[in-house]
């Protein structure tokens, strides 16, 4: 029993990463209709950014948690202006190719510079050790990650649901042309939203650095699962991305416990089942796909 609850907790923590990454993908897809294949690469850059800041400049985890996502968000905005934006008028396939190529370039650039070996990144002193959660001892850092991921997801939801900019983003996601016909400059929001999504990926990367191996392929390994999460949650559904992220995290953790041999493919079996049952995903709407 303790094993199960502990695994579920692990699942929630892993789900937190999936949810933050899927959230960024969903926001970008909603606003730009671009599937960002480079999302995993930016997660990897987030972790490397934290590692490099520490080793090259002595910047600690807490500052990196602020600097790296903001820096990557700026990089994302520049990329959107310089490349993505130019291709949005063409077939979406061009942006798939662009972001896919970008992912390969970023990953190989990091690999050629820093090699394929995992880089060590120690937990911040404040979050070292473990916490007694009643049933079991659990690492403090993991608890922090879970709480942090939940706070990020709730904050994004509040911004989207309660603020004017959130209203505009939801409107532009559903009906870009009608939004413009109401006199709202949708184009103004495209670049910041892309940057925001990239920043979220970077944030997840920094959080991953102390508990997962920092290496060039870390994003590529994870991003396939994140795509499955987005599809299960419903393409373009922000709520679906978050819920599916945490759910898939737990499915993977339970898979590790009960069917370790199949734990890697469990997500994709689940995706196939969900798609057979609901072709637009759990929270997707048919119209979003057209």
């Amino acid at each position, binding site marked *: 029993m303790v094993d199960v609850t502990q695994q579920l907790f692990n699942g929630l923590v892993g789900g937190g990463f999936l949810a933050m990454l899927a959230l960024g993908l969903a926001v970008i897809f909603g606003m730009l209709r671009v599937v960002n294949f480079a999302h995993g690469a930016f997660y990897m850059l987030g972790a490397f950014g934290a590692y490099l800041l520490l080793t090259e400049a002595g910047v600690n985890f807490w500052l990196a948690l602020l600097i790296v996502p903001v820096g990557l968000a700026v990089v994302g905005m520049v990329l959107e202006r310089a490349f993505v934006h130019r291709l949005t008028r063409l077939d979406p396939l061009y942006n798939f190719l662009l972001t896919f190529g970008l992912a390969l370039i970023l990953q190989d650039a990091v690999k050629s510079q820093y090699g394929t070996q995992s880089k060590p990144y120690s937990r911040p002193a404040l979050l070292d050790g473990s916490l007694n959660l009643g049933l079991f001892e659990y690492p403090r850092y993991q608890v922090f990650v879970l709480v942090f991921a939940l706070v990020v997801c709730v904050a994004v939801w509040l911004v989207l649901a309660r*603020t*004017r*900019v959130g*209203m*505009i983003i*939801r*409107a532009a996601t*559903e*009906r870009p*042309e*009608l*939004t*413009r*016909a*109401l*006199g*709202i*400059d*949708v*184009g*103004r*929001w495209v670049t910041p939203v892309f940057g925001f999504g990239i920043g979220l990926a970077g944030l997840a990367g920094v959080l991953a650095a102390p508990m997962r191996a920092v290496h060039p392929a870390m994003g590529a390994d994870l991003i396939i699962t994140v795509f499955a999460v987005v599809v299960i949650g419903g393409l373009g559904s922000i709520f679906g991305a978050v819920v599916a992220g945490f759910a898939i995290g737990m499915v993977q953790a339970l898979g590790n416990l009960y069917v370790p041999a199949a734990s890697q493919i469990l997500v994709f079996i689940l995706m196939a089942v969900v798609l057979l049952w609901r072709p637009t995903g759990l929270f997707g*709407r048919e*119209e979003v796909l057209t």
Partner: protein
Amino acid sequence: MPDSAEAADIPQAVLAAPAALTARGLAKQFRGFRAVDGVDLSVAEGSVHALVGPNGAGKTTLFNLLSGFIAPSAGQILLGDRDITGLAPEQIARLGVARSFQITNLFPMLTAREHVELALAGRAGQGFMFWRSDRLLIEHADRAEELLASVGLEHAATVPADTLPYGQKRALELALALALDPKVLLLDEPTAGMGAEDVDRTVELIGRVRAGRTVVLVEHNMNVVASLADRVTVLQLGQVLIEGEYAEVRDDPQVVAAYLGEPDAAH
């Protein structure tokens, strides 16, 4: 002012009015064909001006040109005296031209109140100033309540538009148009796919919204055109076939031929 004796005179009065919206030599070249081919159009202020014509006549393209959703290959568009050729859709909207779309007039997941608030935000040209929105938002929220009440939707303010019954969706569209308070309203097939009862209700709604505004209407239903339009422009193959009052246009042999699709119709 419009008592029944004077109602018959409206077209004449309208003819004398200055143009609210003018197109000069407007053309749009797509790959291989000209969807709109040198259209001159003058929409008198305060009039309801219908654009009719068979499928492929260029009506929707002309609408997209007038509202800035596509850029013309040639020609000029004037709003009053102001040249709006080549402006972005949101800029044209803020100058007082509101448009509807054939099918998707609402945001399915946004609440009725959010619809109206969006339109108010867009109209104020502050769609982007979210950080200084506190005071304005309250103003907008109050105004939104008023507008919703004026179309009988106050009870449905917090419900996603998707879940509203058909008639209330139409009412919400009206509230959207009123929120924008446009000088010129472009309506793309407002009665498409409707049954007779809804057509009547929509004609009545348009009759209400048109007060003090100019309306350009793409419409297939000739009864709707007959009851609303002061002027009718018939388009064919991207060009103006004929323009006039409904009665004269209806009986024109060219128009009859164009609608029946006779081969000698195009001259």
